[in-house]
């Protein structure tokens, strides 16, 4: 089983490595790091804080967009280009195929987050800001955010076109990211809007758990620059993400299992 999943994952990694847009996104991340350096120089106080914030935002934004891009295309193109015909005729279960595709994407995204993270660390070193455990925790949370977003994208891709999957995945990510703000904003709204928002927030992954810096947690403000979340919070948030990843990939596999490849 693991051999077959690994074969698909390896092939997906090879395929993704050839997507030139990824290199463009890599350039954008490097660009955002350079922008962070410039903005840090322009800031009156705490240049390190600006550099860290812009760098982490770049990883989260571009990492998640890359996850959506890979998630909506890599599974869909297997069906559209019929490359899947020669694969599923072999002794591999369809769920193994979907898990293999996700695993391949996860490896690509992990490498990207690692590269983005290293670029940011290099940028911070240039800027004179040292490493901290808060930064490491924030990077781990960003990594799991990207992996969760990839699972959202592959779920939609299992039954929809790349365009629609992209829109659905982007909307789910944005809603999940803004969940606390949406909940607070709709407190005073009509019951219909309040209930609709509540339902929407219940059915989307709580992606906001991965971007905790600058928020209030249990009544205390947490920040990657000062008092950040403990490792136990990071573990819980990653566990939450892992649960969603398993559920979404399982649903994707279930939907994929029922499809005819004509």
């Amino acid at each position: 089983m693991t051999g077959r999943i690994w074969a698909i994952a390896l092939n997906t990694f090879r395929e993704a490595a050839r997507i030139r847009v990824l290199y463009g996104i890599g350039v954008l991340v490097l660009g955002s790091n350079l922008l962070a350096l410039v903005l840090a120089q322009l800031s009156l106080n705490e240049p390190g804080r600006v550099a860290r914030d812009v760098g982490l935002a770049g990883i989260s934004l571009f990492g998640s967009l890359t996850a959506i891009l890979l998630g909506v295309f890599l599974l869909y193109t297997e069906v559209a280009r019929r490359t899947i015909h020669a694969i599923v005729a072999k002794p591999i279960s369809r769920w193994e195929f979907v898990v293999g595709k996700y695993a391949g994407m996860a490896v690509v995204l992990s490498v990207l987050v690692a590269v983005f993270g290293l670029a940011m660390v290099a940028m911070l070193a240039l800027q004179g800001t040292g490493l901290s455990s808060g930064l490491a925790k924030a990077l781990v949370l960003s990594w799991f955010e990207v992996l969760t977003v990839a699972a959202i994208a592959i779920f939609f891709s299992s039954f929809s076109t790349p365009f629609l999957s992209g829109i659905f995945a982007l909307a789910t990510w944005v809603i999940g990211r803004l969940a606390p703000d949406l909940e607070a904003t709709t407190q005073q709204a009509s019951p219909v809007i309040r209930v609709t928002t509540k339902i929407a927030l219940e059915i989307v992954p709580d992606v906001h758990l991965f971007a905790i810096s600058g928020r209030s947690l249990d009544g205390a403000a947490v920040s990657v620059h000062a008092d950040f979340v403990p490792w136990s919070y990071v573990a819980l948030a990653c566990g939450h993400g892992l649960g969603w990843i398993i559920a979404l990939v399982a649903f994707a596999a279930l939907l994929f299992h029922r499809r005819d490849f004509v």
Partner: protein
Amino acid sequence: MADLAIDVHALTKTYRTPFTRKKVEALRGVTFAVERGHIFGFVGPNGAGKTTTIRTLMGLIRPSAGSATLLGHPLGSRAARARVGFLPESPYFYDYLNVGELCDLAGRLFGLPPAVRKQRADALIEKLGLGRARGQSLKKFSKGMLQRAGLAQALMNDPELVVLDEPMSGLDPIGRKEVRDLILELRDQGKTVFFSTHILSDVEAITDRVAIVARGQLQAHGTPAELVSRSLQGVDVTVRLAAGEPAAALADGAHRVRRVGDELSLTLPADADVDAWLARAHAAGAKVVAVAPRHETLEDLFVRRVAGADRPASAGQAAP
């Protein structure tokens, strides 16, 4: 039953169109069996249901009704798929891989150990004449080379049953002959080969049994000798006409009349008096070039059965 490589019973596939939800019957109760060690040709016009049948057998499509077994296992069984090699129609492979990597991927999915994967990939790549293109990505392959790469990946597991969807498609005459020879070689190794094709001469040349499918239904099923009528269908005659001799008088009552220069070819009806016709031709100054009895060919049968299937009155009738 144990000797059947493929056993298909009343296989039916109905689709619904995306917006109107109109029913489209791609397969309507297809039933046939393929014995182990045979070469089985599956022929039919475009849209007949050949590829739908093959994709259903390979687990790509779920049947709406009916059942089938591959090597004694039910459809979709992993145990069967481990012993089957499959070449899809107009094969699309990952174009960033080279043929060695494609074979390696196939070998991994079959669970072969690395040394076996390498040894089989090397042997198949050489056998299929792709040795010199081994380093090239599949993107740079011609259609014929892709077809051969597809055959290589299909044979990586040394399968008992080989299912080939249009394996001769896109190949030049030499390529077609090589594939025919490969199919015969696979049969000689004791493997069962099931292939679909439009090319009837290939079917006549190499198959043990044939099935003709049209409009989602089986129209005929048997050995080529059983299917085609042994009775005389007519007499093919070729004569060289005297200079300026019009062909009209000799062509009267004949069919398939063709004149190229002074050479006239035609087919006389089976009940025609050939001696009397030849005497008339002699009297008109023509010289006889060839006289041959004409028996029904698989192509005649194919045209007859497919045309019959296309007539509304015959739609819905079961295959004999």
